[in-house]
């Protein structure tokens, strides 16, 4: 399996899937960083969904921030988040074999600027960052066709973890901070 993992970029076309498999076989169990910007770049549907969320939530977040600003007269900075949601990397075979389905949460810092903008109104800025989390493990009753090995079941892979020949691990990361200006 390790030999296949090293060759999987050529077979499955996946440097990320190869990297994640090799980390599993390294038997350390250490968490692995995911390059979330690369992930979102390769999953344009997910990227569009993430970028739409500040716009969808902005009216409500802005209203809360402005209300607080008007109440205190002081700069306002607070954090909002979309909550953990699921996504499946089905459109990209490499990421599909690397992470499959995963969770992501977008955390936004909403800031009301004391200095009024050109129109005389306080300016609201939303900076947001997306966090991704998944567990690299195996699912009962699933299998992956691996040329030329045939079907490799998750149960076979899980048998490596049980006697300590490989180790499941957590993986996650965060995107770069993006700014939404309306």
């Amino acid at each position: 399996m390790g030999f296949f993992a090293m060759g999987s970029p050529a077979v499955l076309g996946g440097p990320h899937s190869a990297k994640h498999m090799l980390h599993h076989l390294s038997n350390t169990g250490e968490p692995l960083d995911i390059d979330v910007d690369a992930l979102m770049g390769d999953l344009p549907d997910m990227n569009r969904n993430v970028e739409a969320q500040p716009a969808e939530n902005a009216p409500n977040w802005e209203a809360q921030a402005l209300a607080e600003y008007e109440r205190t007269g002081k700069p306002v900075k607070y954090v909002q988040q979309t909550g953990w949601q699921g996504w499946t990397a089905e459109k990209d075979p490499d990421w599909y074999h690397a992470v499959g389905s995963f969770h992501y949460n977008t955390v936004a810092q909403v800031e009301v600027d004391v200095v009024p903008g050109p129109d005389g109104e306080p300016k609201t800025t939303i900076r947001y960052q997306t966090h991704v989390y998944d567990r690299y493990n195996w699912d009962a009753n699933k299998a992956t066709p691996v040329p030329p090995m045939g079907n490799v079941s998750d149960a076979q892979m899980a048998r490596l973890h049980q006697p300590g020949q490989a180790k499941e691990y957590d993986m996650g990361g965060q995107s770069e901070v993006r700014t939404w200006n309306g």
Partner: protein
Amino acid sequence: MERVSTPTGLTRPRRRRWLVWFLALCAVWTLGAIAWAAVALLTPAGDDPQEAVERKAGMHHDQHQPAGRYYIPTYAKVEKDGTAVLRYEVGNGQDSSVKDFLRTYDITAEPKRASPSEVTYSDRFGDVRRTFTITYNPSPGAGGYDCARITVRARGTDAS
């Protein structure tokens, strides 16, 4: 050691003749093994009995290539009337769930509720009519389920 005379008058041990035959046999065996390995590696493997049932029901991974990962049936058999029956068990996570199962096998039919814990889907895959019966094992939480059992019954429309 018995010596054999030759036309030139020189003698040669009979043992050498056996050695030549033995080496020739080894070479033939080695070439045969190489040929066998080449045929085994280059010839596409046929379906095993479970895969044959999956293919008959339109549930083989070859028939749904974009999915990448597939479910292994816990039961796979063709009944006497030619109906292919497969059973699967799925969890309620992201990687194993009813939703993922439907996505994996391109099942887009509308569900019909048969009972509080049972839903059916019916579709056609080529010449095969299929019925999916999903039985949910409810979890203590409201509206959730721990796992689900999916039974697929598939029959060719030509009754073959």
